[in-house]
């Protein structure tokens, strides 16, 4: 058994850490306050090949693996969770399904610019009436000659403001229940498609969360991803992989909170000594670092299993996300506690980490949904 990263993975981790530390972290507070990730950061991410980490070179990607991708998300999120999810939603929820289910033509047309970061992707499943239960979506796609006509409203769509390419889920046949959902590649600017209001959020405020409106939006039939009725299956595969990304994001946030707390504990003096001398603080730090390491190993294992093509990896990605999101919550809560009143103010970063951590318990399947997945898998004997 080997726990070591490969030479390239180490180089990648070093590079992303350095980039994130020097270029992203100093701007994370402003990104949070202004609710926007500056365009030049997105351009730099593209230049570095971070929008197509695990995509083969022939499709414009960096030719690395899913483990590498997950490491990128952790390192970016350690600096700025909003930047982390921009890349994660793009990669896991749009790039990955096109790589897996796309026709050669779709790959040339959409995957290549997405992997190069010339175009940004967004994934549109959730609707006001359909969250955890994706089969209750009401968006429909009606076939008309060489087109599908899409009608419906999506909301809570990450990257809605930045994206050029949207993966949209709609019923092509409501009768068939989940087997009647299909996935479509929709370009920004397609007549009948508008991006609506943006949400104001507790955390990941730099990441856009948008409403999408489809009114008789005509999409070429060649933009159907996979086959008619395959949409539910495609979406589930997206979330299986995406959970690895969100787990990595959670670990990145927790890591940042832990590092800040360690530093603060060593320098904050009360009762004539650094508070790190108090066992109560030491125990918090010890728990933090232990939880983080366990969560990291879990997401790395899930990513590694995905790279090996092992189907049951989805059990591990659900466990990784469930555990890592809880770790992020616990660690960021204790990080504020260690900082005392300072931690409650915006003069320190820990309050942002605390706000950012919460979303990891919600999107790409709530913690309750993860437990359902895990329970179903183990009861099936996986």
């Amino acid at each position, binding site marked *: 058994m080997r726990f070591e990263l490969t030479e*390239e993975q180490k*180089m990648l981790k070093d*590079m992303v850490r350095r980039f994130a530390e020097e270029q992203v972290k100093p701007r994370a507070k402003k990104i949070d306050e202004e609710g926007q990730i500056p365009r030049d950061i997105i351009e730099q991410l593209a*230049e570095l090949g971070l929008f197509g*980490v695990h995509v083969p*070179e022939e499709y414009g990607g*960096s*030719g*690395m693996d899913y483990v590498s991708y997950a490491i990128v998300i952790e390192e970016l999120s350690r600096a700025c969770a909003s930047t982390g999810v921009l890349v994660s939603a793009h990669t896991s929820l749009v790039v990955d399904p096109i790589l897996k289910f796309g026709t050669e033509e779709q790959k040339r047309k959409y995957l290549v610019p997405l992997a190069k970061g010339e175009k940004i992707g967004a994934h549109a499943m959730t609707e006001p009436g359909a969250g955890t239960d994706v089969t209750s979506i009401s968006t429909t796609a009606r076939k008309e000659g060489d087109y599908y006509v899409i009608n419906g409203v999506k909301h809570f769509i990450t990257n809605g403001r930045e994206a050029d390419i949207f993966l949209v889920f709609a019923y092509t046949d409501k009768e068939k229940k989940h087997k009647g959902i299909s996935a479509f590649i929709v370009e920004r600017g397609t007549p009948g498609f508008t991006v609506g209001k943006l949400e104001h959020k507790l955390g990941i405020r730099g990441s856009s969360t948008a409403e999408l409106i489809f009114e008789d939006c005509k999409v070429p039939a060649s933009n159907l991803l996979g086959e008619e009725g395959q949409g539910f299956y495609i979406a589930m595969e997206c979330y299986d992989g995406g959970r690895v990304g969100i787990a990595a994001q959670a670990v990145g946030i927790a890591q940042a909170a832990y590092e800040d707390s360690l530093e603060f504990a060593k320098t904050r003096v009360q009762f004539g000594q650094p508070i790190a001398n108090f066992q109560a603080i030491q125990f918090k730090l010890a728990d933090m670092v232990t939880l983080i390491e366990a969560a990291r190993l879990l997401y790395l294992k899930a990513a590694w299993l995905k790279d090996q093509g092992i189907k049951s990896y989805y059990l591990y990605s659900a466990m990784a996300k469930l555990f890592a999101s809880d770790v992020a919550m616990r660690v960021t809560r204790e990080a504020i506690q260690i900082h005392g009143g300072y931690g409650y103010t915006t003069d320190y970063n820990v309050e942002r980490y605390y706000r950012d951590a919460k979303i990891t318990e919600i999107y790409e399947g709530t913690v309750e949904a993860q437990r359902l997945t895990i329970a179903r898998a183990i009861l099936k004997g996986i």
Partner: protein
Amino acid sequence: MKAVCFVKSVPDTETRVRLTGNRLDKSEIKYILNPYCEFAVEEAVRKKEAGIVDEVLVISMGPSRAQEAIRSALAIGADRGVHIEDDNLDGSDAIVTARVLVEAFKKEGGLDNYQILLFGLRAIDGDTWSVPSMIAELLGIPAVTNIVKLDINGNKAIAIRMVEGGEEVFEVELPCVFAARKGLNEPRYPSLPSIMKAKKKPITRYTISDLGIPSDAVGKVGSFTEVLEYTLPPQRQAGKKVEGEPEQVVEELIKFLREVANII
């Protein structure tokens, strides 16, 4: 025209140095490409991108981890590497290092092939600042160290060297040794595709016998200097506060300076 960069693998600046007895404990050190060498490699690669140079070779002497430093240089954009690895080299000092590097350089065609020889001004571990000048001397060519700018014009170069309170501008004929300092350029972050490409670029390996160097000419036996021991800098003591009435405090202070600090 071709360029060669001589690079070194050094402990990361964030590494906590530990000692076992009076020797360095290298077991948990994380190594990186020496940051000054990074400036050198970046400069060579920029010269290549500008069409001035058509090959960038990287040479490093060191244990197996030196290969990682070479890979980092290849990820920045260098074309191929040469790695000199030999157990006998352990304990070699600056002049021995310079001699070995010169032999490897000659094996690659030497000055017939390479006109621009780039170095980092210093390696952040040994910090002798001497290998670039030694190599220039051994090869009989000029060296401009501590440079912040390098322009190549035909077989001439204009290099700007930082000196106390100002800059010196040199015009030199190639071949020449240049040693880079901070400010020469802003090294790029190697992109993921470049990291993957670096994996496929060739690294040639030499032992000292490949270079025709006898084992008693290198390592501890071949060196003029030897590191006898390493010690950690003394721990900083907490400050001492003297409180009370002025007359009393002054007296106590003088006593402290005389008897404890021993400076008056």
